[in-house]
């Protein structure tokens, strides 16, 4: 039974962490442009390495 005293708060804490992460991502604008983000991954913005 004592396991519950650890596990329930732990489970809640993990869930809460996920919730906070989600809030952060909404505030950060990660859900603002699903269409753009899905195509942004395809843009090749690497530049060739140039030796000075």
């Amino acid at each position, binding site marked *: *039974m004592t396991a*519950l005293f650890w596990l*329930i708060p732990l*489970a*809640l804490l993990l*869930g*809460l962490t*996920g*919730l906070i992460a*989600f*809030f952060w991502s*909404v505030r950060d604008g990660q*859900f*603002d*442009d*699903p*269409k*753009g983000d899905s*195509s*942004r991954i*395809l*843009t090749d*913005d690497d530049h060739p390495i140039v030796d000075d």
Partner: protein
Amino acid sequence: MDKVTPDRAADVEGCPSGLQDTPIRETDPFGADLALDDFVTVKNDLASIDLIVQGAHCGGCLAKIERGIGELNGVRTVRMNLSTMRLHVEWTQSALSVQAIVQCLSDLGYGAAPYEINVAQSQSETDLRRLLKAVAVAGFAATNVMLLSIAVWSGGGEMTESTRTAFHWISALIALPAVTYAGQPFFRSAWGALKNRQTNMDVPISLAVLLACGLSLYETVNGNPDTYFDAAVMLLFLLLIGRYLDAKLRHKTGEAAQRLAAMQSTSATRILPDGRLETIPTRRVSPGDTLLIPAGQRIPVDAEIISGSSEIDTQLATGETLPVLKNPSDIIYSGMVNLTNPLTVTAISAETDSFLAEISNLVQAGEQSKSRFVKIADKAAQAYVPIVHTLAIATFIGWLLFGAPLRQASLNAIAVLIITCPCALGLAVPAVQIVASGRLFAKGVLLKSGDALERLAEIKSVIFDKTGTLTQGKFQLDNKADISAADLQFAGALSAQSRHPIAKSLHIYAGPLTAIDVTETPGVGLTGLIDGQTVKFGARESIADNGLSTQSWLQREGKKPVMFAFSDALRPEAKSTIDRISALGLSSQILSGDTQASVEAVASILGLDHAQGGVSPKGKLEILTALNADGKLPLMVGDGLNDAPALANAHASASLATASDISRSAADIILADDSLSGLPDAIMIARHAKRRVIQNLGAAILYNFIAVPLAVFGFVNPLVAALAMSGSSMIVTLNALRPMKT
């Protein structure tokens, strides 16, 4: 939004944005001196602006714009949002002007307009975010409380009372803050309704959630076995999903409407008394101003011509296919396009009372009358709410009369409220509408709102505009086979310098030849020098207008004139679309601003009995209103400015991707791949969706028939409530997702 037709895709690489017939900067020239500075916010030399970008559709555009603007000297951040078409740029103010940014966008091939933050729209954006967060909170609470509740239920008698009470306390600790946060959208709306002495669906929802929580807290404090925390938060979770889907659909619509409004704001060139020119926004033009309208520009306000003659494209304004010649002292109206020569005019109206504004007012009036349409869900709610509340009160009084203690009576009454809480109703409609709008999208049809889908399912007849809707709205060469390749090239090279719709259709034949010294005489034709020969094209003395086809002549020096025949061809899918619509049991007719002869020519090809030509925008509106009143609920399909009032007032309306901005914003659905063939599909999907909504409402009613007696007679415990609620929500969602036969 625009899809590329295969043959055009072949000759242009990359994105459809470069495919517009006229470059955006020609029709909406955001000149270097337009008042863009009003929209720039500056803070410590860091300037920023939000622009709406026209013509950006894909990842390629996004990369092109971000790279292009990013390379400008002084730009610090550039972020393009493809979902809202908004571009956010931040730059060092001293290093760069906002005009340079707009110019760069224009050079890349995109149009830009400043984005004015609209209060309603930014409010809806905040609401949408808040709803999304509420969904997350309710989801978190629902899963965790359910975890604890399942332990209590499955523990049965084995769990000690102290453990059970501890579990209930933890549940309360999770559920109460979650309900306080996530329940707000419902509480606020319910309170708003009650304050106005009305009820809506949110009243029983709020009541059920609050009472369930209050009761559960009371039971927890007293160490009793049953609590309803899980039911309360799960209810919120499911309902919030429905609410979020609904809000998202509406937000998208508002966004699109605002984008169109922003793109409409154009500029005008004013001639000052000392002869200087200045570019001003159209809204600052006042009657009496002298304006210069260059060839190719849209006419900003109604005006009287002072000097110059030019052919005017009135297609969007009146539906006439052929340009009209206008001379000094003729009146031209806003929304028409000046084709051939620059004109000096006197403005006779301001933007707010111009022809275009009059059309917008009619459109707005139509939209208001449409908002009186009562949605199925609201009808259901109006019947549902009083019944549920009466039942709960009856249960409470009934148990008291039979001698039950107060606690048991209120427990059962609350169980009735929880179990009848319109969870399935809340999901039944938005789930179907979201699925249907996804299906429509796959068919190239954009749906503007959920109730548009309901109205589309009810239509009894279809009314088509002619020019640009049934026909392609642009001329095609009919007798190409009879013309030699050389003649074709000469005609092409000469017409390459003209914006006349007939000349435009020959642009593709230009080849390597170039014409010099080209003069365009309005109403007569083109003359120019090619390879040292004088070439004339037009020569309208033998013009024959027999409805559809129009003839022009090409005369090369020392050769016999060659006849070119043109017509505004029907869309290839027009006939099959009309056949499919009549197979759906709907009658079709044509209502056009073009001449009766050309309308009848089209009608006879398509096999339509009813065709009316020469109808003014107001006339269209009157006919539509009469049909609405007769119960012959029409679906209006149109593309021009002159169709916009009819589109806004028809029971349901459709517009094409290439239509005028105002028609697109007035229409309920947009055929985004610019083909009519999506129309019968859309009607079919709307009818299927309506059937699904009714099935779902039926399922919800059936569920209540079974569950309510259980609750009234006190057989409902938390487990039954949870199962019944999630079960009914699952059923309606799955029914919405079930494939449709289309």
